[in-house]
């Protein structure tokens, strides 16, 4: 029968089919003869042979895919994926993994999350048994020999450690060989002993804040992160932030929304009618989620990509916009110009106007102030300016003002002044009542006056000699004004029209003649000259974006990425994007608004995680540090920077930054308590408490007195003093030296004390920071101990003194979540940690135990004074009325400087505390984003679930001695996983806002997701006030839905989304309003080469070399997630592998480079050797070196430096932007990973030349 079918099939098509060339009488004869040579039945067309049996070979592939168990786990990598995977195990060996398919449904009318995964995740199990696996504890031979010798002389480990690090010869001996091999196998016992001794000695001799820990992205494995953080927080060490350090934190988010970052889940992309992917290469960087984008196109979604190069996602786009790198804000301003013109001036779109009134600061009044002989926008008008009863209301300086229909000033509900005062309970909401504030004061019938205001522009290079006024010029434009309480005021909206160059009849000033007028900022024609994007295209996209938002009720979305977020001025770029979504009413609407990439930032069970990791159940506050500033000082990059802050300032600046470098701004920020800094003071904080006790004073008072009389200083004022060095850094789940370490060569030289390829000179006298002490001899090798736990060898482990072997993601229990989907799911061990590896949880437990043992004799119970920065979402944010920091006030902790909190450190019992739940969770509650949760019932339940400690000082406490128990704690203590707490939080919010909100969680009040639940299947979270959106009723999460639908204010000054920022520093930077600032001119600021420079260099005895200078960008890679996977055999095979730099054909031709040639790229920061990938997809003048190229694969010796050289970050360095350092004022206030200077790196340039093709290793 088979034969018949086949024959029929053949005949059916035979008419049209051209017979294969091998057909013919000869072939037929040969095959026909074969009948006599073999068994089996041959089909009549001689094409098929039918045999029975002979399938013994199947065993081979059946065995290959045979397994005896399947375990659910995931990948703890910073990719936003958080995909659930099946891990297959055979005979105790992990064999491979495949994607889980059981995500809860998204509901009808939408594609599902399943399938999720990408080639990188599918390659993970390779690591388990790979040559790069760290199997045993390793210590560098030089150090271990020194230590063993010291132990013979000093039997006590702490004394032995002290004898090494305090001996300059010995410490140089082991520091100078860091990164040069020599890691030898040790034992856990010895490695823990040395590590614990180093921690104890540092706490004792220098202070607990001289110990730092770096481990990023808790959401990618919460307990693994939390276990280490908990240890360090109990010890008093500092935890370094990562979101800002990675430059993934969009500073615009706190500036505009008063929120760290909150974005829609990827299933909500499907709901968008118009999608702009702006600097975000979704198929490459958010692979598991990209399908929603591709699917939405079949629903009629229009897809636009904005990217300088022809990226992978451009293939999916209806339209490709290709601006010059870093000029995106000009394009967004022009689009805003079109939208404001067409929807607010020529025509008035009711929906947009209504949204602007209710949800943005557009109708709020801003005073105009004299600046020389012109007027400039000043401060928000507040109730305190109105006089009378309004001014007497509590916190009147933080109650902003609008006009009503009659032109009278009113103080609407919901501003910061209403948020914390008991008198205003129930009025912190967005309810405007019957007030319909005019967007423009010109909307009022009796407004006749208008004045000219001066606005800075930054699109022109400053004239020679005028560099210290940042920008190049000023535009003068008119705004309608009124007098209110004796002040000249206008609205934010009027200022926006002026800023965007949208003219109205009768206003004075310089206005463009139309869209095609390039002469003045704001127009599509103006942006064309900057970005190269045709004006016509900018108009069309702006128009379509708004038109779609109008007709769809706000379903226009901008999906933005690192391409626009890693610039020095990215806060201004993002503000121009966000302005587009705000003026078209898209924020808080499903399918609309911004969709920033977040890294795996969103710890959905936030409160429980925070409680566990900060050890908030035992001691508060934790020392949480801003990563960028820490590394900037610790690696002495400040010695080479010297960036004059006033060169960044507006031409209309009032001199806030005069004669100061950006490093000085950091010092001011720390001294004012705006930003945290650890090490904090020039002395051990434990000793400060002892001194206070001896003097019979309160330690806080002692610190204030000592600062006042000059006997105590801040460590940031003298970071090169040995007592202010960070001494111990613990790194886990991270690869600073191979991935995130901007200014890699500075790390190597100053922090580690080993060979480096720094090419820059230190800042010359006269340009150095004013407020930081300059020591002529730069410290080499500040750090005493670099301890890293990892499962694979990275650049960081190669430079570490102690390497601890960690379990992989298939070898432990943990939790994972992401912003991209609304599920929490689990890690579970497919096998026990092999060789001598331990989970992060266990290894920090072991370290804590050993630490406590040594602490008995060396530390005991001590008191510690913690300087805590003025914190976001607390009344601290009202420390600076009108954003006007004053210098004439005394030091008052919590107002004019950081809070000073004295805490007890029970060092001998540290381990006991680490593994038990402390009393403060119940006693003080757990505060997240201004709401306090009380978990008494949960503690009772956990006592049964986890059991209680049976003996010792903490008998009766809930046990947290296994990773699984820590998971249960996190889930029980969070609103997203425990409905009772979600409802509890919402009830508080209802009281504060006077709005009905708790129904979003009430139907889940009895729900509680346990660890077993998430082991069975990923679980959808419960809507909780920990976040701003709603999943209620199976709805797709979008940020700020609660704000828009339930009138809950944003955590900003006005309680609305902000176009306008009125802090003094923002004013002096010229960034009150969304504006365009071009990439930093590295030539002007630092004398680096100019992009586009080409030259020939004559080498001594070598043929001359052509060189070209180009922009140097490090976007996210297709074949790795940061440095993870780039060393994976499968990814190396799929990609070209090893270090590569992508360059355009034009640039390659200039320097005679052909594809795959070895090249060297260098600048002031260092050198990189890589192969060139010459591709027409790259624009001329820009090269890419995909982030992150680790030192472990194919790194030859550089001709330029003679050193083995270079990772992608050898060419970058840290640059601080002052606006990121502002704190203590409304939404411009610090919280961990919420605000802080970014580790931006996109503004760099590099010079490239072809090198000898004979490379040596």
């Amino acid at each position: 029968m088979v034969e018949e079918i086949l024959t029929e099939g053949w005949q059916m098509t035979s008419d049209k089919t051209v017979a294969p060339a091998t057909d013919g009488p000869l072939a037929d004869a040969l095959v026909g003869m074969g009948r006599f040579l073999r068994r089996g039945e041959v089909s009549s067309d001689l094409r098929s042979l039918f045999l029975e049996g002979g399938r013994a070979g199947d065993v081979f592939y059946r065995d290959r895919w045979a397994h005896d168990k399947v375990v659910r786990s995931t990948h703890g990598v910073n990719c936003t994926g958080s995909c659930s995977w099946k891990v297959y195990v055979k005979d105790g060996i992990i064999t491979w993994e495949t994607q889980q398919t059981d995500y809860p449904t998204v509901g009808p009318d939408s594609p599902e999350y399943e399938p999720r995964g990408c080639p990188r995740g599918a390659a993970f199990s390779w690591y388990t048994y790979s040559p790069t696996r760290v199997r045993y504890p390793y210590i560098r031979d030089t150090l271990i020999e020194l230590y063993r010798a010291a132990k013979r002389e000093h039997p006590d480990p702490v004394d032995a450690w002290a004898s090494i690090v305090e001996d300059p010869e010995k410490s140089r001996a082991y520091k100078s060989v860091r990164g040069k091999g020599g890691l030898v196998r040790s034992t856990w016992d010895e490695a823990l002993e040395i590590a614990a001794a180093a921690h104890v000695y540092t706490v004792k001799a220098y202070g607990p804040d001289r110990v730092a820990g770096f481990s990023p992205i808790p959401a990618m494995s919460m307990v693994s992160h939390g276990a280490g953080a908990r240890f360090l927080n109990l010890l008093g060490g500092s935890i370094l932030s990562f979101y800002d350090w990675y430059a993934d934190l969009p500073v615009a988010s706190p500036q505009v929304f008063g929120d760290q970052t909150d974005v829609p889940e990827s299933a909500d992309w499907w709901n968008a009618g118009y999608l702009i992917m702006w600097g975000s290469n979704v198929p490459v960087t958010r692979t598991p989620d990209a399908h929603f984008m591709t699917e939405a196109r079949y629903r009629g979604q229009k897809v636009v990509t904005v990217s300088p190069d022809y990226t992978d996602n451009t293939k999916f786009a209806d339209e490709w916009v290709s601006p010059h790198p870093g000029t995106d804000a000009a394009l967004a301003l022009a689009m805003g110009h079109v939208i404001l013109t067409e929807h607010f001036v020529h025509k008035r779109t009711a929906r947009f106007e209504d949204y602007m009134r209710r949800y943005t600061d557009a109708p709020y009044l801003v005073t105009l102030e004299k600046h020389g002989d012109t007027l400039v926008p000043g401060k928000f008008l507040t109730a305190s300016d109105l006089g009378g009863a309004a001014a007497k209301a509590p916190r009147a300086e933080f109650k902003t003002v609008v006009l009503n229909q009659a032109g009278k000033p009113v103080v609407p509900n919901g501003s910061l002044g209403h948020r914390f005062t008991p008198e205003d309970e129930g009025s912190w909401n967005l309810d405007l009542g019957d007030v319909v504030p005019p967007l423009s004061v010109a909307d009022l019938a009796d407004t006749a006056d208008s004045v000219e205001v001066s606005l800075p522009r930054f699109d022109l290079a400053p004239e020679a000699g005028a560099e210290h006024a940042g920008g190049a010029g000023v535009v003068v434009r008119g705004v309608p004004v009124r007098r209110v309480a004796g002040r000249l005021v206008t609205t934010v909206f009027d200022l926006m029209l002026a800023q965007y160059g949208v003219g109205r009849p009768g206003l004075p000033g310089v206005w463009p003649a139309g869209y095609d007028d390039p002469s003045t900022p704001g127009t599509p024609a103006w942006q064309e000259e900057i970005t190269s994007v045709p004006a016509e295209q900018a108009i069309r996209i702006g128009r379509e974006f708004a038109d779609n938002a109008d007709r769809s009720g706000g379903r226009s979305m901008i999906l933005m990425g690192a391409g626009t977020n890693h610039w020095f001025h990215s806060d201004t770029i993002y503000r121009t994007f966000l302005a587009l979504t705000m003026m078209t009413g898209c924020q808080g609407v499903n399918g609309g608004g911004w969709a920033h990439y977040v890294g795996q930032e969103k710890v959905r069970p936030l409160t429980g995680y925070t409680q566990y990791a900060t050890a908030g159940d035992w001691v508060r506050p934790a020392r949480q540090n801003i990563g960028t500033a820490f590394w900037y000082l610790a690696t002495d990059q400040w010695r080479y920077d010297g960036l004059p802050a006033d060169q960044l300032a507006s031409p209309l600046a009032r001199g806030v930054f005069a004669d100061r470098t950006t490093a000085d701004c950091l010092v001011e920020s720390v001294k004012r308590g705006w930003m945290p800094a650890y090490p904090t003071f020039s002395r051990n904080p434990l000793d400060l408490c002892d001194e206070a006790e001896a003097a019979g004073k309160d330690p806080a008072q002692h610190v204030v007195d000592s600062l006042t009389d000059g006997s105590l200083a801040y460590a940031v004022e003298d970071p090169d003093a040995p007592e202010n060095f960070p001494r111990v850094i613990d790194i886990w789940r991270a690869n600073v030296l191979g991935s995130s370490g901007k200014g890699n060569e500075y790390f190597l030289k100053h922090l580690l004390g080993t060979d480096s390829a720094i090419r820059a000179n230190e800042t010359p006298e006269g340009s150095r920071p004013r407020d930081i002490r300059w020591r002529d001899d730069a410290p080499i090798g500040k750090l005493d101990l670099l301890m890293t736990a990892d499962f694979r060898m990275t650049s960081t482990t190669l430079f570490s003194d102690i390497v601890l072997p960690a379990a992989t993601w298939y070898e432990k229990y943990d939790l994972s979540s992401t912003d991209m989907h609304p599920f929490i799911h689990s890690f579970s061990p497919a096998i026990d940690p092999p060789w001598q590896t331990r989970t992060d949880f266990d290894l920090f437990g072991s370290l804590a135990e050993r630490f406590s043992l040594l602490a008995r004799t060396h530390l005991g119970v001590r008191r510690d004074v913690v300087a805590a920065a003025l914190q976001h979402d607390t009344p601290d944010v009202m420390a600076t009325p009108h954003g006007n920091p004053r210098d004439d006030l005394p030091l008052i902790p919590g107002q004019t400087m950081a809070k000073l909190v004295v805490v007890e450190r029970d060092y001998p019992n540290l381990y006991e505390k680490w593994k038990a739940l402390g009393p403060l969770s119940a006693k003080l509650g757990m505060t997240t984003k201004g709401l306090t949760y009380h978990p008494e019932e949960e503690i009772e339940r956990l006592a049964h679930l986890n059991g209680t400690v049976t003996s010792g000082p903490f008998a009766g406490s809930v046990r947290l001695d296994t990773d699984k128990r820590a998971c249960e704690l996190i889930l029980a203590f969070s609103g997203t996983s425990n409905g009772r707490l979600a409802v509890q939080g919402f009830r508080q919010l209802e009281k504060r806002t006077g709005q009905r909100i708790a129904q979003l969680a009430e139907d889940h009040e009895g729900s509680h997701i346990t660890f077993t639940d998430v082991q069975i299947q990923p679980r959808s979270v419960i809507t909780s006030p920990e976040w701003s959106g709603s999943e209620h009723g199976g709805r797709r999460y979008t940020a700020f839905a609660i704000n828009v639908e339930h009138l809950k204010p944003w955590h900003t000054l006005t309680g609305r989304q902000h176009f306008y920022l009125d802090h003094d520093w923002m004013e002096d930077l010229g960034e009150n309003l969304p504006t365009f600032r071009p990439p930093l001119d590295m030539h002007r600021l630092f004398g680096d080469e100019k992009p586009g420079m080409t030259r020939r260099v004559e080498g001594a005895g070598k043929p001359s070399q052509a060189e070209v200078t180009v922009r140097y960008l490090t976007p996210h890679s297709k074949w790795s997630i940061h440095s993870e996977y780039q060393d994976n055999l499968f990814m190396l095979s799929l990609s070209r592998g090893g270090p590569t730099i992508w360059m355009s054909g034009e640039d390659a031709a200039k320097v005679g480079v052909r594809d795959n040639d070895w090249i060297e790229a260098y600048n002031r920061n260092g050198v990189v050797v890589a192969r060139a990938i010459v591709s027409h997809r790259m624009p001329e003048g820009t090269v890419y070196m995909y982030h992150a190229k680790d030192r472990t694969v194919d790194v030859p010796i550089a001709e330029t430096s003679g050193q083995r050289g270079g990772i992608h970050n050898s060419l970058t360095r840290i640059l601080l932007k002052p606006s990121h350092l502002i704190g203590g004022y409304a939404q411009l206030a610090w919280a961990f990973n919420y605000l802080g200077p970014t580790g931006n790196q996109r503004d760099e340039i590099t010079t490239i030349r072809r090198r000898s093709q004979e490379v040596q290793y």
Partner: protein
Amino acid sequence: MTALQIVLWVAVPYAAIAVFIVGHIWRYRYDKFGWTTRSSQTYENRLLRWGSPMFHIGILMVIAGHVVGLLIPREWLYAIGITEGIYHLGATGLGSFAAALTLAGLAILVYRRRTVGPVFLATTVMDKVMYVFLAVTLGFGTLATVFYQLLGPGFHYRETISPWIRSILIFQPDVALMAEVPLLFQLHVLSAFALFALWPFTRLVHVFSAPVGYLFRPYIVYRSRDAVRGARKPRRGWDPVQQPNPQRLHGL
């Protein structure tokens, strides 16, 4: 009959043949998935397209010639009318042509292997060793033919080497036959046995899996399961799963 002669003309051949046979069995059992030519066609095709057919056609002719000259007693050939003269003409003429073809093909292949980067990278140590012995064997054979058969008086190997080979194969080695054989022929024989000994450990195993069957076989093969359930041999202690007896089921 010296000890050296016994070693060279008895021990060495038998050792080589033993290694050849046992080696192939071993290779087949333990390296079944490595039984391959390790084709480099995907790396380079331009040179291979000439070198490979030249070498292979040449070497097949060479092998055929050796079968005729060594294994078939000359009396049998006389019987079918192939006289000494005709044989000599054929052996020398065709043999020289085959040798030239083979050596030229080999030269192209070796040149290619050394100069084409990807091919050179895919070359193992065993490949290199094998090439040396292959080239040496071919070289001595060609030299012997040129010096003795073309330029010289002609050496009657069918009176010495051929019977000796046959004596080896029938396990009655006659060492004396090899005593007076010229050095070049002796070296050719010894290098050939060395090559045989190396054979199972090189890509030469592909000789035994030459895809000759493809000429006679339909290109789609369907294999249905055979009577034995599962592809695996039943293991001790495990009873095969059987269909439940319906009668018994209904009886319950």
